[in-house]
């Protein structure tokens, strides 16, 4: 299906999120959308799928003007979207998840639907069992499920808003193969991302957004520097690798064993030094999360001991760790990190320790304004957290970290950040390392892990590698380990 935007404008209060957007996506193409955080990408996609109504302007589908008044409406017209922050998945079976979205009949034809799922699943080489429960699927599998569901509903346009965070390299390959196949069948795919190399590899055309405006459309062959220049109005350099790792050990793990219902990690021994950055690599669900949560006291090890600065912290709870200067930055930012429905100011008040009774609104707003400036958050002190763009939510999450910390644990810290912000955030984090703060983080981006870590641990099916020196390893070597080779 051919999509055409004509003079689309969308305001949020004083924010002009989409400023006179005009462009056309021909049928059967993979359209890339690039742009800095808060550029208006998600907003335009939400206008196209009926989540928001444009204040002015028109959308044409196959040259017919349409009004899309709700997401259901959009699906009826053949437009489906995979969201940046996946919507809640209820505890139900895959097949019921499919049936839920159908209109027809009081008594759905389960047999037929089951067959359809299996057929579609095979067509795209996904392994999704209609009878498994949705909550047991990994992020990547849920995404596959959602794609299948939308295709099954007959969509002609598939929108993916930053789909590659949190999925494994293998799943990413499958996703890309699927998208290429769909485009060749005549579907229109819209691919929103901050990862330039992905966009370059996949998209047959790219639109670049900046500050609410469409600043240009680019056809291959692509030039990465040109993209960067269009997005930020300047070129962006990755800073030289720096290290602040001292020889003073601060954290000591002795024979730690961890367990949850799926996974078991045995006898981990590690010393983390002051100012050191440790990157955790591995497929999603290989134990990195258990490991991080153990270091915060959110997960109790089944064996071994944890020493923080010489004190035994084994079996202590999260508040004790927090008091000792440990901070945790979860990946599911809207579920575990931030509080939808509360303002930025309220978040900053909550994040600091307060012993007085009354809230000092004035100083809270001042603090919030400082942090907004310092972290370039696009929003006001009174903005509700869910009104921020995805990348700005991530900045808020990082801005909430307290000042004096000994250990920061982060899951996908630059998830959803544009390139410039990712570089800048890391420079801020490294600043902290100078003051002897240690960092442990996970990422699905191996370049990020190699660039910013001092040492790397690779996780594979319950195994944890010896610490690998980040200066001497390569993406290939890590990739092999992640895939289970060379253990």
């Amino acid at each position, binding site marked *: 299906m051919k999509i055409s935007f004509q003079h689309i404008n969308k305001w*949020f209060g*004083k*924010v*002009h*999120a989409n*400023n006179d957007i005009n462009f056309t996506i021909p049928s059967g193409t993979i359209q890339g959308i690039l742009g800095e955080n*808060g550029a*208006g990408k998600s907003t335009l996609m939400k206008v196209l799928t009926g*989540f*928001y*109504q444009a204040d002015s302007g028109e959308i044409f589908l196959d040259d017919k003007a349409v009004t899309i008044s709700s997401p259901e409406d959009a699906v009826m017209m053949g437009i489906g979207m995979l969201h940046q922050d996946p919507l809640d998945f209820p505890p139900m079976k895959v097949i019921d998840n499919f049936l839920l979205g159908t209109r027809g009949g009081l008594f759905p034809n389960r047999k037929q639907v089951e067959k359809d799922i299996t057929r579609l699943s095979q067509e795209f080489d996904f392994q999704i069992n209609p009878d498994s429960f949705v909550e047991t699927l990994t992020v990547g599998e849920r995404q596959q499920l959602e794609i299948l569901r939308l295709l099954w509903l007959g969509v002609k346009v598939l929108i993916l808003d930053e789909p590659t965070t949190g999925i494994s390299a293998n799943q990413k390959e499958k996703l890309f193969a699927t998208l290429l196949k769909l485009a060749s069948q005549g579907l229109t795919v819209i691919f929103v991302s901050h990862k330039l190399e992905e966009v370059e590899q996949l998209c047959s055309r790219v639109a670049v957004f900046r*500050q*609410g*405006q469409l600043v240009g459309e680019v056809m291959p062959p692509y030039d990465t520097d040109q993209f960067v220049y269009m997005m930020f109005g300047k070129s962006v350099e990755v800073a030289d690798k720096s290290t602040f790792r001292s020889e003073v050990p601060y954290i000591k793990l002795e024979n730690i064993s961890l367990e949850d219902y799926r996974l078991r990690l045995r006898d981990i021994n590690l010393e983390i030094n002051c100012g050191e950055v440790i990157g955790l690599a591995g497929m999603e669900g290989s134990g990195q999360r258990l490991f991080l949560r153990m270091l915060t006291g959110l997960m109790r090890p089944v064996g071994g001991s944890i020493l923080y600065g010489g004190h035994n912290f084994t079996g202590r709870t*999260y*508040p004790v760790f*927090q008091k000792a200067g440990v901070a*945790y930055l*979860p990946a599911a930012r809207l*579920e*575990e*990190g*931030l*509080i*939808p*429905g*509360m303002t930025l*100011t*309220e*978040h900053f*008040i*909550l*994040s600091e*320790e*307060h012993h*007085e*009774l*009354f*809230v000092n609104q004035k100083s809270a*707003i001042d603090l*919030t*304004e400082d942090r*907004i*400036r310092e972290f370039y958050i*696009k*929003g*006001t*002190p*009174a903005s509700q957290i869910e009104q921020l763009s995805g990348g700005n939510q991530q900045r808020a999450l990082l801005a*909430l970290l307290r000042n004096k910390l000994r250990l920061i644990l982060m899951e996908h810290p630059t998830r959803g950040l544009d390139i410039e912000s990712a570089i800048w955030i890391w420079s801020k984090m490294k600043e902290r390392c100078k003051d002897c703060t240690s960092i442990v983080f996970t990422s699905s981006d191996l370049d990020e892990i190699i660039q910013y870590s001092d040492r790397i641990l690779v996780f594979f099916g319950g195994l944890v590698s010896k610490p690998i020196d980040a200066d001497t390893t390569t993406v290939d070597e890590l990739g092999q380990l992640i895939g289970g080779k060379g253990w």
Partner: protein
Amino acid sequence: MSLEPRAGQTPSILKKSTWIDFGIRLTAVILALVFTSLILVIAKAQPLEAYKSILQGAFGTTIKFTSVIASWVPLVIATSGLLFTFTAGLWNIGMEGQIVMGAVFTVGAFRIFDETGLDPSLVIFLAFLAGAAGGIFWALLPGLMKIYGGVNEIFGGLGLNFVAKTAAIWLIFGPWKRPGVASGSGTEWIDIPFRLPYIPGTNLSLTILIIAIIVAVFTAIMLKGTHFGLRLKAIGKNDKAAYILGIPTTRYFLLAFGLCGLFAGIAGAILVTSKQYSLIPDAGFGYGFLGLLVAMLVNYHPIWSAVIAFFFAALSIGNTELQYMGLNSYFAGVLQGFLVLFVVLVDGVRKRLVTKL
């Protein structure tokens, strides 16, 4: 799309949404009145007559007016308590039972101190303390069951309501029965010096009015101005994130239940010392349930809750007048029902509009 944070923006945004909120609630009230009138017309009654007699019934005389205030007092106290649990995201359905327990403990205290010869005002004070303890005790139970037993507070509360009422009935017909006959009309009345005196010529005790105002103001300040209130709100909206931000969620859950129980207990003590003077099977008079209704209607906003509670109190006192005039005595029920319906409805419409904005 340039957006500079500006200090002046916060209050104006706040103000705007408060007015929109007010407008929405007003629309709901008007719709409820219109539909109730329609029902009355269908039932061949005179809507205007009905409203007039309600107004007369509620405000016609000093006695009536002060009765409205006397019935507003326990309602606003119960609602205030519920605002704490609601803010923390807890459904304290057990409120009614907590008020009953407050009444039970109050009456129990009077029975203990009855013959001691202590100064009556000291005894009353001790009885209020006992009532408060009873309410807190009964409110902490669903809290502990939720935290340590994984029992949803709604089920815990429902069960405890039942137990509280059964306990009251058992006391009335058993250990605390009147000399001679045990009767469903309640235990023996407390001695006159223990009853809170009314302001001459009215139906209202000044003490309870002062207590209610203190409770309502305390609640508004705690919820809107303090770190405590903000943390409760955070827990209510996302307890996982609140915990990771550093709020001890378990302790705050229990504090919310405890405060709610404290107010329930005080409401129970007030009902004993200024209204019933004894323990009756229905010792909570339904104020716990009505409080839940008010708290939901005002969307957990403390100041509005005082206003709406007054409206409900006037409605129920005024409604008694209708019976004398031969009009349908279910009038107040119908109006209250429509009110809830329209507030929920209008709120739903607003949410739709907001996402479309």
